[in-house]
């Protein structure tokens, strides 16, 4: 069982991912913006972080930078984003994300894809 931090500002999309993660038997802790997500990352240890790119106040790229500073361990951070134009994935990967999953997600394969990307399957 993996412990996953999910930072996602859209409530319904958060519920969807959380439901899929928990249905697969993993633990999911959620935050709706970067600052509270970073607080959680400081306090607890996570196996995977799922991070939306467009977030209020601080975007996913900025959150990623801070995560790398506050987490003692190099936790796999996967972008889950609605940005699906050419170049979006490449930009994220070169910024240091470990994976990039575009929305709409495939419910049947989502958790499997997350685990594989994080190297935990």
């Amino acid at each position, binding site marked *: 069982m993996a412990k996953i931090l999910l930072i996602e500002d859209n409530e*319904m999309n958060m519920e969807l991912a959380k439901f899929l993660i928990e249905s697969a038997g993993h633990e999911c802790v959620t935050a709706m913006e970067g600052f509270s997500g970073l607080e959680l990352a400081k306090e607890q240890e996570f196996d995977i972080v799922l991070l939306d790119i467009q977030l209020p106040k601080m975007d996913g790229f900025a959150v990623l930078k801070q995560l790398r500073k506050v987490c003692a361990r190099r936790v796999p951070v996967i972008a889950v984003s609605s940005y699906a134009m050419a170049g979006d994935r490449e930009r994220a990967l070169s910024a240091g994300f470990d994976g990039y999953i575009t929305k709409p997600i495939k*419910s049947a394969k989502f958790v499997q894809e997350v685990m594989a990307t994080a190297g935990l399957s």
Partner: protein
Amino acid sequence: VRTWNAGAERIKGYRADEIIGKSFSVFYTPESNSKNHPQRELEHAKKFGVYEEEGWRVRKDGSLFWADVVITAVRDGNSELIGFAKVTRDLTERRKSDQERDQAFKAAETFRLMVATVKDYAIFMLDPEGRVMTWNEGAQRIKGYSESEIIGKHFSIFYSDEANARKHPQEELKIATKEGRYEEEGWRLRKDGSRFWANVVITAVRDTETGELLGFAKVTRDLTERKRTEEEREKAASELRQLNHELIKANSAKDYFLANMSHELRTPLNSIIGFNEVMLLGLSGPLNDTQRKQAQFIQRAADHLLSLINDILDLAKVESGNMSLASIELQLSTILEDVVATLKPLADERKLSLELAESCKNNSVRGDERAVKQILTNLISNGIKFTDEGGVAVSCSSDDSHVFIQIKDTGIGIARTDQSLLFKGFVQLARAQRKQEGTGLGLALSKRLAILMNGDISLESDTGKGSTFTLKLLKGK
């Protein structure tokens, strides 16, 4: 001739022994003699005591000289005429210099007239202080002042208050005095206050011997028309730059809008598609048959909406020139096998064959993998959608420079009149009558993508005879 002196010999060339005893008429031209001019001179002197004239006389060698002649009647104590005293001066040299002066004067006058009547240039003289000394027709035409109005006025009258405030006219004369010449282009004022763009050359005029400054020659041309043309050109260029700048701004605004649009549309679709799939997967409890069928409708509609969004955004991006595609070596058979494998279930569902010919093996092309995949998926899925019986066959061929991928279906075909509309994109959306699900943008997008990769898509079809789409791509190594 009774007596002869050395002066007479020097002027006329005769020695005393040659001339004494001869009539003085030998000193006259044949023309004078034919008019009895010598005799008349004597008669005049006899009557009035003296005769004086200037005229041409003839030397011994036949050459002419200009003579001042005074003939005086000489009388004895009884007032009896005993002869004439004749004093002759050779004035040829003086006459010559008089003529030269006349000629020089005439030349100067001709030049003055020429300058005075020039209409295209204002040509005038300034005195050393800058007051107008002469004026010509061109000056009057260009500046509007008549000669009587302007002579004696300082030439600063042609300059704007601003130019005068910074003593520009005086500065020009200073430079002309120092350098010999001053040239510039600038705005000048006409009598009526209107501006004209002038080309001005001021030349210092000096006495050739003493070097004393006599004044300045000023030549002015009116280049307002040329200036206006230049200004208009510059204005047009500036407007074009501004427009270009706005276009770039608009274009980047459009890109920003497209990126956000894509994002905003996908965000709610994520919940719709995701939760619907959750239900279909039975993750939140089993569905009955009717619920399952209805959830499948939601899924189909949502997938369709997603492909619409993708096509619209892609096409908008291609049409705004912002689609950049890679040009790399691609294994065509790998891509084709992948696409065919993805679409096989759709063909199976419609009970159609989907065949990939052996000819497609070992072909490589140059292009962008995602774009090639997108085009092939579009063409093959179209073939499946618009065919009710038979199936779709994919085959390949090549020449020296290109690879041709043929997608042949046994479907309903496309009427020749509709074929030209097929690749038109947004235009086609409104006009085509489509029964099948599809964005109607797929072909337009595919064609543009193919062209961006230096390829093309062509069509051979007719109603009821099926369709063959040929994708042409650059051949790899």
